[in-house]
C-alpha cells in the first residue's frame, strides 16, 4: 500500500483532484482579500460546469466549453457582486441563495435540454498536448498533457505575485482591510471589490469547467461540496494564494488516499470526513490563528 501511495499514478490522481479545489480557492482568496465574502463558490463551480458542458455539447469544441464555463462563472459572480457591493445586502446569505439558485437552475435547464434530471450527454474531453519526453509514463503524460493543469499551476504562482507584488494587489488588499482609507486616497472601493469578485467567478467557473471535462458530462450536483472545501482551504491557507493552494493539495491528498484505501478496511465515509474535520480543527486555532481581511463581509457605505 505504501508503494501505492508513492506511485506516479497516485500523485497524478492527487493533482487531478486538487486542480478544481485550487482554482476555486484562489478565486475565493481574491474575492475575500477585496472584502467580499464568497460562500457562493459552490454555486459558481456548478454553473461553470454546466455552462462548459452545454457549450461543448452544442459546438463539439472544448475550447468553447472552457470559455462558456468561465462565462457562466463570471455571470454568477456578477449577481453576487451586485447584491453584495451595490445593494450592500448580507454577503453570506447572498452566497447561500446563489448556491441554491445554481442547484435549481442547472437542474432545470438540464431537464429542458437533456431531458434527464440527473445527467447530461457525454461531451468530449480537453485535447491533449503531446509531450514526447514523458512517453514512458502514460499517467504523467496524461496529467501534464492536460492544458488546464499547467495553466492552474501557473495561476497559483502568479496569484501570489499579483497579490503581493503588484499595484493591483496592494490596492485590493487595502480595500479589503480598510476601505475608507483606500477611498480617501482616490481608490474606487467598488471597482476593486468587483475585480476581486469577478476574478473568483473566472477561476471558480474554470474549476467547474475542469470538472465537466474530467467527468465528460454534467451530473446533477456535481460540485459536491468542492466550493466549501475550497473555502476551507482558503481559511486554512490564511487567505494566501500559496497557502490556499497548499491546503488544497493536502485535501486532495486525503481524498486521493481515500480512493486508494477503498476496500482496505477503512470505511469511505470516515475518509470523506477528513477535509471537513481538518477545517474545523484549523478554525479552532489548533494550528495557529487564521484571520480574515478586516473588512471582509462588511459592505462599504459612504454617506452617513
Amino acid at each position: 500500500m505504501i508503494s501505492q501511495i508513492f506511485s506516479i499514478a497516485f500523485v497524478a490522481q492527487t493533482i487531478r483532484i486538487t486542480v478544481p479545489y485550487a482554482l476555486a480557492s484562489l478565486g475565493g482568496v481574491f474575492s475575500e482579500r477585496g472584502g467580499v465574502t464568497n460562500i457562493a463558490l459552490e454555486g459558481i463551480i456548478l454553473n461553470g460546469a454546466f455552462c462548459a458542458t452545454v457549450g461543448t455539447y452544442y459546438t463539439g469544441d472544448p475550447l468553447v466549453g472552457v470559455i462558456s464555463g468561465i462565462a457562466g462563472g463570471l455571470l454568477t459572480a456578477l449577481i453576487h457582486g451586485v447584491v453584495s457591493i451595490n445593494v450592500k445586502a448580507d454577503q453570506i446569505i447572498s452566497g447561500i441563495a446563489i448556491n441554491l439558485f445554481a442547484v435549481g437552475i442547472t437542474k432545470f435547464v438540464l431537464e429542458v435540454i437533456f431531458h434527464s434530471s440527473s445527467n447530461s450527454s457525454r461531451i468530449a474531453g480537453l485535447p491533449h498536448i503531446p509531450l514526447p519526453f514523458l512517453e514512458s509514463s502514460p499517467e504523467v503524460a496524461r496529467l501534464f498533457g492536460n492544458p488546464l493543469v499547467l495553466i492552474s499551476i501557473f495561476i497559483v504562482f502568479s496569484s501570489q505575485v499579483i497579490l503581493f507584488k503588484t499595484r493591483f494587489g496592494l490596492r485590493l488588499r487595502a480595500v479589503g482591510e480598510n476601505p475608507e482609507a483606500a477611498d480617501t486616497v482616490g481608490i474606487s472601493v467598488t471597482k476593486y471589490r468587483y475585480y476581486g469578485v469577478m476574478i473568483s467567478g473566472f477561476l471558480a467557473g474554470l474549476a467547474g469547467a475542469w470538472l465537466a471535462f474530467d467527468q465528460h458530462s454534467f451530473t446533477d450536483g456535481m460540485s459536491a461540496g468542492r466550493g466549501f472545501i475550497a473555502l476551507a482551504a482558503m481559511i486554512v491557507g490564511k487567505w494566501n494564494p500559496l497557502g490556499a493552494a497548499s491546503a488544497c493539495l493536502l485535501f486532495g491528498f486525503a481524498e486521493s488516499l481515500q480512493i486508494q484505501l477503498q476496500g482496505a478496511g477503512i470505511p469511505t465515509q470516515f475518509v470523506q470526513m477528513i477535509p471537513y474535520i481538518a477545517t474545523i480543527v484549523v478554525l479552532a486555532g489548533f494550528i495557529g490563528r487564521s484571520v480574515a481581511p478586516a473588512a471582509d463581509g462588511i459592505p462599504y457605505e459612504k454617506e452617513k
Partner: protein
Amino acid sequence: MKIKKSALESSFFQNFVVPLTAVLLSFLVGAIFILIVGKNPIEVYSVLFSQTLGNSYGIGQLLFKTTPLIFAGLSVAVCFKAGLFNIGAQGQLQIGAFLTAIVGMKTLGVPFYIEIPLLLFAGMAGGGIWGFIPGYLKAKLGAHEVINTIMLNFISTALISYLVTNVFNVPATVHTPPISPTGHLLRFDQIFPAFEGSPVNLSLLIAVVTVVLVWYYIDRTKYGYELKVVGLNPRAAEYGGISVSRQVVLSMVIGGAIAGLVGSNFVMGYKYYYEEGFSTDTGFMGIAVALLGNNNPFGIILSSLLFGMLEYGGLVINTMVPKELVSILQAIVIIFVISSNKIFRRIIVNLIKKKKLLMVQND
C-alpha cells in the same frame, strides 16, 4: 418626514410589505422561466395553487411539508437573533431525526406517554449536540460558525450514512428498522378523513407549540432579553454583565434542538424509520423561511406555509415544468428579501431629500 422614516423601520413594513413584495417579484421572475420553457405561466401557477390549496389532500401535503420548515426556520431565526448564522440546521435536523429513529427502535413496547416525550427529547438532544459543537467553538475560540456549521453538515451526512449502512441497517435498504409503534404520532387523516392519504400528522401541532414557546422565550423571558442584546451589541451585553459566550452556546443548542424536532414529522409521523436522503435541503430552506418571516416566530409560520406550498406545488407541476423551478423561486425570494431592505431604504431616503428642498429645516 420623520413619520415616513420610522414607517420604513416599523414592524408592519418589515413584516409584511417587504416579504410580500419579495414573493411577488419572485413569482414574476418564475413566470419568465416558465415562458422560456414554452408554457403559460398563468396555467402553471393556477395548477400549482389549485392542487395545493384547492383540495384537502393537497392541503394535507402542504402542511406536511410545512412542518419541518417551521422547525428549521425557528432554528435559524433563534440563532439570527443572537447574531449567529446557523447554516447547520441541515446537519442538526439529520442527527436529531436519526437519534429519534435509533432510540425509537430500541425502546419497543414502552408506553406512549413515555415513548413520545422520549423520542422528542432524543430529537432535541441530537440536534442540540450538533448545535453545541459550533456554538462552543465560536464562544471559546472565536471560530466562525458559518464554516463550522457547513462542515458539520457534511460530517453528519457521512456519519449517518456509515451508521445506517453498517450498523443499524435493514438489509437492502437505506433506512433503519422501524421505531416502536407507541412512538407513532397520530396522522391527521385518522381523525379527518378529508386528508386521506396525506402524511400530515400531529408533528404540526408540536411545531405550532414550539412557535409559541420560542416567541415567549425571546419576548418575555430575561434569557430572551439577553439573547437579543448579545445579538445586537455584544460589547454592550458584556458591559451589562451578560455572559456573551453563554448566550452564544445556548442559542446554538436551542437552535439545534429545534431543528432536531424535524424528526418528529418524518420519523414519528410518517415513515416510522430514518431514511437516508429524506431531507436534502430543509435546513437551507429554513434560512429562507427565517428571512422571509423576518425572524419573527409567527411570521415564520406564514413563510413556512408559503414554502411548503411551493415544495408540494413543485411536484404537482412537474409534468409541465421541471420542479426545480421551485428551488429557483426560493433562491430568488431570499435575494429579494435581503436586497429589498436596502433598496427601499434608498428610495425613501431619496424621496425625503427631494421633499426637503421645499421645506424649511427645523430641529
